[in-house]
Structures are given as structure tokens and as C-alpha cells.
């Protein structure tokens, strides 16, 4: 008998977990971490105690869930599917690989199965938690933590509108003024490329792409972004993509719904003023 355990790392996960339960056709028991989630070793140990008797254990994809759920899979000797975007059956899932160049159908041949899934690919179905999980003991200690309350901007992975900037933004102040300015006017979030993050123009948690955040807004505005495979892997599920780039041959124009060949330093402020 298949039994589904849903793990919420944050309250916002509940509706996505409800949607996943519907997609896989199982009712699901939802446990939610109460308070701060501890480092992975303690979190996975705590989850292992709850996992007994479940054939499927699912969580929303995030850096945190990848950290914890893969360790849990190791503890349970489980099969694992990362970043599922579709449930074909309880033993078959579709997931992207090679920076989204391939959609792979993965078959699991073992139970339990630990799954992380991309919330944008599933409906939102409200679900209440069945149990709160509080963890106190850890071998690894967390000595500092930054980020979390980033002003009034929405979370990148939930945002309806995102403005992202790339390498030409020069420095953090310019990035914040140009990209942040339009994002605030739109009530949206700010994203960045790896090139922008690596050169210190943008904070690491803003990186969008294969190895950063996967986003799915209604509107994604990419300013000064070339359109590398790695960046595009993170934005393919956006409803409308806008590219602003001085180079008419930039690869991003192949993916953009609207392409504007222009200097971002004039086009973005103009857009900010007029929207």
C-alpha cells in the first residue's frame, strides 16, 4: 500500500505539497518543521523517525530540502528523484537534467522513494499540517545566518514578476538602482546571473539558473543577460520573458517573448518611469 509523507520546510510549502499529493493520487500526511530547521544531519535524523511505513516522502525543491532530503534518502536507503516536474505514476517521474536540455523519465525500482519537486509544475491545493516537528539536538552547530528578511521584496521562487540583471551592471549600487528600481516599481523580485553574483554585483541568493534558483513568474525581464544554457534552465517556466540587450544576436532573444535591442542603462530607467 503506497503511503505518502509530505515534509514542509516552511508554511508556504503546504499548498504545493497538497498539489503534489493530488498529482500522485495519494492522500498524504503532512509534517512541518516548527521554528528554525536545524542543520541537515539533525533534520534528517528527525525525519527518519517519522518516515517509518511511508513509501513516498516528498518536499518542495529548495537548497534546504536538497541538503536534508538527500541525506534522509541515504539514511533510509531510499531511491531519490530530485526536481520532479511531473508524476507519470508512483514509480515514474519526469525531471529536467543537463541544465534543462533534457526531460528525463526516471523509474524508481525500490521503496521508499524520496522526492523533491518543483512547485511551479504542480497546482496549489491547500493542505493542513498533521504534525509539527521540533528538533533540538544537533552535532553541527550553526554560528551565524544572514538573509531572510530582504526588505519588502517577494521571494524569487514565489514572485509573479522578476527583474534580473547580468554582467554589464558594473557594481552593486548600479545594480540595485537600475534592476532594483524597476523591480520595486513592479512589486517584483530581483534576480541575477552567475556572472553578476561572481563579480559581487548581486547577492548569491539572487542567482537564477541551473545551479541557482528556478523561477516561474508571469513576467521575467532580463537586462544585460546573454542567455546562457545555465541561466535559461532557471527561467524556462516563466510565462512571458522580456530581453533587453545591446547585442541583436544575443542567444536570449531566441527564448524571449519580447526582445528589445537597446542599452539597458537607458531602456530600464525609461521602463521604470513609464510602467
Amino acid at each position, binding site marked *: 500500500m503506497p503511503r505518502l509523507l509530505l515534509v514542509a520546510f516552511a508554511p508556504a510549502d503546504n499548498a504545493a505539497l497538497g498539489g503534489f499529493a493530488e498529482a500522485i493520487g495519494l492522500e498524504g500526511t503532512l509534517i512541518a518543521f516548527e521554528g528554525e530547521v536545524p*542543520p*541537515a*544531519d539533525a533534520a*534528517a535524523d528527525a525525519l527518519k523517525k517519522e518516515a517509518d511505513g511511508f513509501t513516498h516522502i516528498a518536499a518542495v525543491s*529548495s*537548497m*534546504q530540502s*536538497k*541538503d536534508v532530503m*538527500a*541525506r534522509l*534518502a*541515504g539514511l533510509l*536507503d531510499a*531511491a*531519490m528523484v*530530485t526536481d520532479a516536474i511531473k508524476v507519470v505514476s508512483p514509480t515514474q517521474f519526469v525531471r529536467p537534467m*543537463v541544465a534543462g*536540455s*533534457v*526531460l*528525463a*523519465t*526516471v*523509474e*524508481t525500482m*525500490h521503496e521508499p522513494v524520496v522526492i523533491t519537486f518543483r512547485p511551479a509544475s504542480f497546482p496549489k491545493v491547500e493542505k493542513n499540517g498533521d504534525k509539527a516537528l521540533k528538533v533540538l539536538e544537533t552535532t*553541527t*552547530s*550553526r554560528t551565524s*545566518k*544572514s*538573509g*531572510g528578511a530582504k526588505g519588502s521584496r517577494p521571494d524569487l*521562487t514565489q514572485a509573479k*514578476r522578476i527583474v534580473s540583471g547580468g554582467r554589464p551592471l558594473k557594481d552593486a549600487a548600479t545594480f540595485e538602482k537600475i534592476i532594483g528600481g524597476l523591480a520595486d516599481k513592479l512589486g517584483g523580485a530581483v534576480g541575477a546571473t552567475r556572472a553578476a*553574483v*561572481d563579480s559581487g554585483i548581486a*547577492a*548569491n*541568493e539572487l542567482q537564477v539558473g541551473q*545551479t541557482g534558483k528556478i523561477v516561474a513568474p508571469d*513576467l521575467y525581464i532580463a537586462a544585460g543577460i546573454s542567455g546562457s*544554457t*545555465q541561466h535559461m534552465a532557471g527561467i*524556462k517556466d516563466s*510565462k*512571458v*520573458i*522580456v530581453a533587453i540587450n545591446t547585442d541583436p544576436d544575443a542567444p536570449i*532573444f531566441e*527564448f524571449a*517573448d*519580447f*526582445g*528589445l*535591442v*537597446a542599452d539597458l542603462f537607458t*531602456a530600464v530607467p525609461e*521602463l521604470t518611469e513609464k510602467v
Partner: protein
Amino acid sequence: MKILCPIKRVVDPYAKVRPLSDGSGLDIGAVKFDVNPFDEIAVEEAVRMKEKDPTVTITAVSIGGPEVEEQLRKALAMGADEAMLIENALPLDSSVVAAELAHFAKGYDLVLMGKQSTDDDNGQAAQMLAAKLNWPQATFASSVSIVDGIATVTRETDTGEETLVLPLPAVITTDLRLNEPRYIALPGIIKARTKPLSKVPRATDAGPKSRVVRMDSPPPRPAGRKVARVDELIAGLKERGVL
């Protein structure tokens, strides 16, 4: 301190790849292979530790066929002391890799490896390995310092960064910001040819718990259009209902 750096041979992360038309696998064609970029960052970090502390020894390890020697040689050229090829021709998944590595990691103080491979994009093996060894883990590291058997790791999180302090032995995975791997000069590659590379049989008979049964191309995005001015862009976005 003994460091184990597991590395994976992957298709060139900058190459464009697509599935074969019958969905049976990847169309590799003339695509080159390289060390998974995150594993390269791990080897670089280990080599930097060795440069500061000559008592550090580094073993690069990989699982696969004879073709993987090429990537192990690169790790040796970067500065690893020895390499180990766990010979395997059978299907693998992360759980098998973790089971094998758990056997060979015993006796090491630190496993330093990539947070994910750029082909499978799974990001599972290191955490599974840490679980099997019952060692603490710190994933997505952007800075690592080890003093007196205690690792202090700054790691990237969904919302920013955090610092973890964990006792060795431990498993640490690398993120992009940890370092920029060195360019390997010719003398290094020549020297690497004389460094030891041993071949060992698999230690477990673990079989994969999952397998890829089909590969498809993602659906293409419908063609967009170029707009000449900001006003035209705004009109278009309003038409699409996103402004």
C-alpha cells in the same frame, strides 16, 4: 589530514546537448568530456589546503570505465597526490555511488566534492554518502577553513549564507563561489603521468534504485518578437496581461 575528492566525468558543461530522437539517451556526438566543474572546485580547494599544510594528502576517486582515467589525471595535474579508479561497467545511480564511496572513504578525515554534477543535476551523492558514514555534512560551501579537526564552513542558503561548525570527519560540497580552479600548466600534466593511479574493483554489489527510461527534448517556447521601443514593449506586455 587525508582528503578524498570524488570526481565525475561529465559532458562539457558549455556544450549544447540534446536527447537522441528515439529518446534512448543523450546525443553525445562530438561533445567533449571534462571533470564536473563543481568537483574541480573541490580538488582546487583541497590543493589550496595542501599548499598551506604539506601534511595534507589528497586522493581523487571516480567510478567508471577506463575513459575516466583522463579526468583522474586532470585531478592529479591540479595537485592531487594519488588517484583511484573504482572499475565499473554496470548501471549507477547516486545510491550506488554513495555506497561505494562510503566503503572507500573510511580512514579519511574529509570528503570534499561537488554539490551536483552538471549532467544529472541531482545533487544527491554527497548527502547520501554523509548519511551512510554517519558523518556531519556542510553542502554548498562558499568558504571552508579547518583548524584542529574542526571545519568552519560558510554555505550558501536559499536566503543568504550561514556558517556551520562541524567536527571532522565530515562531507563538504562545493558551490561556485568557493574558488576559481587553477589553469593547469604543461609541467603539471607531465608530472601527473608519474603519479600513482590505482584501479580497484567495486566494494559492494549495490544495484541502482532508479534509472532513466526515456529522454525527451523540452517543449520549445513559441517564437517571440522584437520590439523597437520601450512604449511598444509596454503595449505588448499589457496585451499579454502581465502589466
